[in-house]
C-alpha cells in the first residue's frame, strides 16, 4: 500500500552515526524483528470487557432493585389505602356514637332524665343555694328534639344482645354464640373493692 520510499534504519549506532557516510544502494533493509508481542494486551482487553460487563450487570441489578422497590411501594400504598378507608369508616362510626343525640337516646333508654334545676353547694360554709328537688320523670324523649340523621337505625345500648351492663338479663343460648370468655366475664358482677380505714379523702385547705 505504501508508495513511500524506504528509509534507512539505524539501530544502536549513536556516537559514530554522523561520521559515517550513507552507503549507496543500501537503502533497503529487511524489517527488523519487532520482538515478541506483549501478552498483557489480552489481559487489558479482558479487563476492559469484564469492566463493561460488570457495569452492565450492576445497572441491571440496581434497576431490578428499584423496580422491586416500586412493587413494594405499590403494595404498601394499596394497604395504606385500605387501612385509610377502614380508619375513615371507624371514625364515622365513632362520630356517630359520640354525637349528643345518641348519648341522650342511650341515657333515656336506660331511664335517665335531664335535670334543669341547678343547686349549688358552697364548700366554704356548706350553704345550699337552689331548691334540691328530684328531676321529673315525665319528661318526653329529648333525643328527637335535635335530630341527627346519622344515628337512624343504629341500635341503642339497651337493644344490643351483647349488652355491656353486667346487670343485663342474658340468656345462656345467646351467650354460647359469642366467645365464651367474653360472655362469662359480662355475666359475673365485678368484685367490689374492700373498704378499710374509711374512704380516701383528699387533703383540702
Amino acid at each position, binding site marked *: 500500500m505504501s*508508495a513511500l520510499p524506504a528509509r534507512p534504519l539505524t539501530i544502536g549506532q549513536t556516537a559514530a552515526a554522523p561520521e559515517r557516510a550513507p552507503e549507496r544502494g543500501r537503502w533497503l533493509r529487511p524489517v527488523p524483528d519487532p520482538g515478541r508481542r506483549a501478552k498483557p494486551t489480552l489481559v487489558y482487553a479482558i479487563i476492559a470487557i469484564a469492566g463493561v460487563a460488570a457495569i452492565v450487570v450492576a445497572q441491571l441489578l440496581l434497576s431490578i432493585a*428499584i*423496580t422491586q*422497590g*416500586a*412493587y413494594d*411501594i*405499590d403494595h404498601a400504598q394499596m394497604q395504606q389505602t385500605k387501612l385509610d*378507608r*377502614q380508619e*375513615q*369508616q371507624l371514625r*364515622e362510626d365513632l*362520630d*356517630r356514637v*359520640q*354525637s*349528643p*343525640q345518641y348519648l*341522650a337516646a342511650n341515657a333515656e333508654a336506660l331511664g335517665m332524665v*335531664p335535670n*334543669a*334545676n*341547678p343547686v*349549688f353547694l*358552697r364548700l366554704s360554709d356548706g350553704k345550699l*343555694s*337552689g*331548691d334540691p328537688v328530684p328531676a321529673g320523670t315525665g319528661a*318526653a324523649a*329529648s333525643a328527637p*328534639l*335535635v*335530630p*341527627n*340523621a*346519622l*344515628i337512624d337505625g343504629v341500635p341503642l345500648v339497651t337493644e344490643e344482645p351483647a349488652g355491656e351492663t353486667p346487670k343485663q338479663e342474658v340468656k345462656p343460648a345467646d351467650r354460647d354464640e359469642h366467645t365464651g370468655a367474653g360472655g362469662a366475664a359480662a355475666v359475673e358482677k365485678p368484685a367490689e373493692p374492700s373498704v378499710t380505714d374509711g374512704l380516701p379523702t383528699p387533703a383540702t385547705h
Partner: protein
Amino acid sequence: MKRTSRHSMRRIIVSAVLLVVLVGVFVVKLVDIQVVRASALNAEAQDARSTPVKVWGARGDIVDANGTVLADSVMRYDIVVSPKQAKLAVAERKAAKSGSSQADVELTTEELVAGLTPAATELAPIIGLTPDQVIGVITSKLAENPDSDFAYVAKQVDIEAYDAVKALEIAWVYPKEHPSRTYPNGAVAGNLLGFVQADDGAPLAGLELAQDQCLAGTDGELSYLHSASDWVPIPGTEIVHKQAHDGGTLKLTIDADLQYFVQRVAEEQRRATGAKWATVTVMEAKTGRLIAVADVPTVDPNDPGATDADDRGSRTFTAPFEPGSTFKAITAASVLDAGKATPLDQIIAPYRYEPPNGADINDSAYHDDERLTLTGVLIESSNTGMSKFGERLTDRQRYEDMQKFHFGEPTEVGFPEEAPGDLHGDPDEWDNQTKYTTMFGQGMTTTAVQIASAYQTIANGGVRMPVSLVESCTTPDGKSTAKPAEGERVISEKAADETSQMLERVYAEGWLADTWNIPGYRVAAKTGTAQVADGNGGYLHGYLVSVSGFAPADDPEYVVSVSIMDPVKMNSSAASAPVFQKVMSQVLKKYRTVPSGAPAPDLPATW
C-alpha cells in the same frame, strides 16, 4: 502509477462525500427530533403512556370553640354500571353456551333480563335497591342509547357498601369516589353550618357558603408512568401538574354542648307552646362572642330535605322583627346617657297618652294613671311612660343613638342573607305615630342578634364589642386569620350601670319573677310582647314574645336573648321566660360563674 492513484483518489473522495451526505441526513433528522420537535414529541409520549390522576383536595373541617368537629369531609362512592358491558357480558355467556362467536349472538330483552338477574340480585341489597330496579336502570339506558357506557345505580354510598360491591367482582360495575360532607352532631348548629349539595359538594347555605373561601380545597393533578400489566407506578416518573391543597379549618366561637342544650330547650318550648319558630342567642358580654345560636326548627345538614325550606336558615340573622318592649331598655339607656333623666325620675303614666303632635299611645292593659319612676316604667313595661321619657330626646338624637348601637345595619358576622333591620328611614320622615312607637320597639325592625348585641353593650358598661361567630380560619400550613376584637363606647358607663340596675329590678319585681328565678345570681332581664307586621301595613293577631337579659348583673358575663314567634298556647312573655331561666342557669353552671355576693340595689318603682 499516477493514473492508479487518481482513480483511487476519486474513489476515496466519492465515498467520503457519500458518507458525509448520509451522516448529514441522519444529523438533520436527529436535530429535528431532539431539538426542534422535542417538547411536542415528549408530551405525546407522556400522554400515550402515562395516567393522569386527580388528587382530591379535602374540604376543611368546621370545629367549635373547643375543637369538637361539627362538619367533616369523608369519601363517598357512586356505584356506576356500564350497560354496554353488562349486555356484552350476557351475550358472551350465551355465546359460550351455544358455542357460536359472540358477535353473532342476538339478545332478546327477556334473555338480557334473565342474564342480568344473578348479578343484580347480589348487587341490589348492598345499595338498597331491588334487583328489578337495577335491571330497569340498565335496560332503560340501553333503550335510550345502545352504546351507553355509564349509568348511576346508587349515589353517596359509604365505605362498607363500597367494599361489598368490590368484593362481588362484577366486571360491569365500578365505583367512583368523590369527597362528601358529614355532620357528626346532626342538627346541632345546623342553622349556622348550612349544608352542601349532595352531588358535587357545592355549599348551599350558612357558614359553608359564607366561608367557602376558607373551607374549599383545590384539587390537584399528577401523572405517572405505570407498568402495562399490573399498573405499578414506575419510580421517578411522577409529574405533579397541579398541587392539591386542602381547605383550612374553620373555628367557631360556638360551644357544641351548650348549643345542643339550648336547641333542645328551645324546641321543647316551641312544641309545648305551638309556636311557629323560636330563636335563642347566647353571647359573651365581655367579648361579643356568640357561644350558642339556636333557631328551631333546625335543619339537620345530613338531611336538609327533611325540614321545610323556610327553616333551613338561621332566623337569628335573617328574620327581622319588631322588637317590642325589650327595646325600652335601649331607649332608657339613651335617655340616661344624654343626661335627660335618672332612674328615679318621676312621671305619671296614664293608660292612654295623646301627645301634642297627634299620635295616640296606649298601654297593653287598661289601668288608672300610675305614678311611676323610670324604673317603674320598665317594670310595668308602660308604653305611655316610656313615651314621656323618650320625648325628652329629639328624634334625631334617638336615631343617632340607635345607629351607635349598630341597629339598621348587618352585624359583623356577615351571615348569608343577614338582614340589616329597618329604622323606618330617616327620622325626619317618621310620621307622628312612628316617632313614639320607635321608643318602645314598634314601627322599626331589628334582628335577634342585634338585640343581643345591644344588651351586650349595656352589660359591658356601655362598650360594644363586635359580634363574632367565626374565631379563625387556619390553613393546613398553620396560618391563622384570628384577629383581636376592639370595642367601641356607645353609652357612658354610668348610663349602662343605671340601666343594668333598673333591669335587675324588672327581673326581681316583674310579674314573671317566680318563673325565671335563678337562685344565687343577680340577673337583669326585660320581657317583650311585640305585635308582628303582616306585610300590608297592619299587624297580625299573634305576638312575638321575647326575653333578653344578662347575668350576673354585678359583673355581667353572659347575655341571653330568647324570641318565640306566635306561641298560640301561651300568648305572652310567660312562654319565653322558662327558656331564659333554663338557658341562663345552664350557661352559668357550665362556665362555673361565681354566684353574686350581695343582692341587687333597690330602686323604687313608684312614688
